């Protein structure tokens, strides 16, 4: 069974009908993992024996007639989602051996459904970034071109066929940009659809648990399992509508796709061409195209960074070396804090904590924070207004092709790459990255954004065959 060419539904059916055991499937996955991970730096830790033990238990349940919807399906989990069996590094060398006392709600739900965690994937310094270039363990290499970054290790794990889907986090766009850079599909669900319990986030207002997979069909099956109220995350919603069946693509004559003209002006011509072609293809298929205005993208990005940095400065306060992690060497309390925090927080996390504290200080609070909160509101209103004119929006996922590993860039260059993703995070609306085309033999992804809880429509539309998706690549 080749995971790249098999749907989750087919693989589960094969396990349930005894064509392959969960044990064999996971054993094969772990072998692939050791071969394919070499040089790509996808995993921070690999489950090994624990994963095989879980697979054995699933086979036993299967023999007793258990009807697990993800029986034996391998999943990679980003290393900022707590999982009691493997270390949770949070993107800090000081946490390489940290065993979390809790397991994230999303991971629990997957395991209850029969999925097997095969490893924890690489991430930026304390999960802050969209490239993995600031990871203490070094960047994850793009499976398409080895001299470039993958953007997200979960996307690389899926693109290489190591696993059928990955569980990731997304605040300003790391997951969506990674999916774009690796030519796979990534869903950031509506705010409140998936519990964030057990997700270590630097940015509570915008961090969400997302799914990256090879196809929309695979995402739909997993999303059904993850959706719904969790009393440990007060912001979760009761989700009654099932998403598993997405085979019916929305009637083209009833759907209007919004094309924010000004957004595409930020792109280089060769990238813009990909989206113009996608827009024309939608029109050829009978979808109505409405040109709309999203005039606050850049200012929305800046508001995102003010709020994200301020929240990071607060969320990082718990990393004091006393309750978990490593304690800095000193007999003086103040110095112990300083040393502990210097060891735990890498360069980017330190920068964000310090700048966030500065923005919150007297004199700056009103000027920056209050203004950012108002711009946040305006961005939400702008997106809501856009959906008066259209049913879905198309936007780029990334501003550029994936970065070269040896490229010189400033922190502001990296922040600016979230231009198309961070404002969507502010809107709270769901976004799906799907392959839209290629430039210089690298995949380019498109975000489809819809109103709250419109995932079913997004996934149905996203399953259209662009002919450039990874399924058509050998």
């Amino acid at each position: 069974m080749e995971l790249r060419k098999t749907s989750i539904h087919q693989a589960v059916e094969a396990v349930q009908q005894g064509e392959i055991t969960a044990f064999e499937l996971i054993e094969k996955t772990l072998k692939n993992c050791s071969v394919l991970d070499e040089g790509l730096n996808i995993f921070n830790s690999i489950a090994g024996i624990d994963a095989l033990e879980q697979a054995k238990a699933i086979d036993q349940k299967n023999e007793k007639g258990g009807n697990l919807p993800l029986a034996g399906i391998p999943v990679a989990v980003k290393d900022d989602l707590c999982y009691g069996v493997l270390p949770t590094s949070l993107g800090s060398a000081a946490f390489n051996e940290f065993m979390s006392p809790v397991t994230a709600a999303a991971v629990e739900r997957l395991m209850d459904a029969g999925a097997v965690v095969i490893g924890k994937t690489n991430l930026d310094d304390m999960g802050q970034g969209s490239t993995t270039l600031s990871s203490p363990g070094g960047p994850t290499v793009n499976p398409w071109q080895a001299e470039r970054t993958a953007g997200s290790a979960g996307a690389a794990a899926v693109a290489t066929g190591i696993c059928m889907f990955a569980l990731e986090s997304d605040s300003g766009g790391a997951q969506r940009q990674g999916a774009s850079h690796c030519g796979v599909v990534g869903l950031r669900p509506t705010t409140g659809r998936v519990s964030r319990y057990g997700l270590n986030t630097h940015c509570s207002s915008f961090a969400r648990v997302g799914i990256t997979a090879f196809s929309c069909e695979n995402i739909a099956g997993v999303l059904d399992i993850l959706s719904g109220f969790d009393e440990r995350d007060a912001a979760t919603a009761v989700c009654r509508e099932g998403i598993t069946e997405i085979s019916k693509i929305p009637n083209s004559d009833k759907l209007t796709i919004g094309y924010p003209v000004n957004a595409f002006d930020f792109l280089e011509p060769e990238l813009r061409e990909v989206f113009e072609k996608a827009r024309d293809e939608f029109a050829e298929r009978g979808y109505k195209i409405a040109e709309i205005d999203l005039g606050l993208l850049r200012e929305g990005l800046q508001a995102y960074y003010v709020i994200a940095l301020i929240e990071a400065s607060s969320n990082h306060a718990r990393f004091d070396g006393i309750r978990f992690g490593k304690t800095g060497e000193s007999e003086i309390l103040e110095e112990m804090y300083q040393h502990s925090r210097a060891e735990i927080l890498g360069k980017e996390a330190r920068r964000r904590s310090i700048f966030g504290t500065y923005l919150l200080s007297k004199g700056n609070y009103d000027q920056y924070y209050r203004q950012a909160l108002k711009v946040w509101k305006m961005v939400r209103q702008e997106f809501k207004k856009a959906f008066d004119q259209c049913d879905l929006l198309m936007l780029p996922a990334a501003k550029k092709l994936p970065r070269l590993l040896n490229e010189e860039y400033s922190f502001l260059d990296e922040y600016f790459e979230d231009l198309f993703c961070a404002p969507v995070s502010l809107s709270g609306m769901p976004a799906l990255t799907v392959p839209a085309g290629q430039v210089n033999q690298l995949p380019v992804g498109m975000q489809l954004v819809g109103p709250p809880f419109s995932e079913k429509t997004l996934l149905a539309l996203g399953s259209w065959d662009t002919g450039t998706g990874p399924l058509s690549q050998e």
Partner: protein
Amino acid sequence: MDDISKGLEKAIKVIKIKVSSSEQEQLQRELKEFLTWLEPMLLVDTGQTEQQFFGHDAVNVLRDDHPRQSELAELQEAAPKFAGGFYLVPKILE
């Protein structure tokens, strides 16, 4: 020392992070660049717009409060130093 540099120094002190002098110099330059980068957002006419505080507009429904089993034992295991029900830190009193 200008106001931004003073503010930065204070922020570093408040959040208790050990930063070398060369890193602090670099952070000063970067903070100035960052504040310049934010200028377009400051120019947005927000008029009577209210502030947004949450990622959604739903109304929170509070659940009943029920006592649960303490997770102290698990938290204890995760702490570098823990004894007698307390996290241990260096002494601040003789």
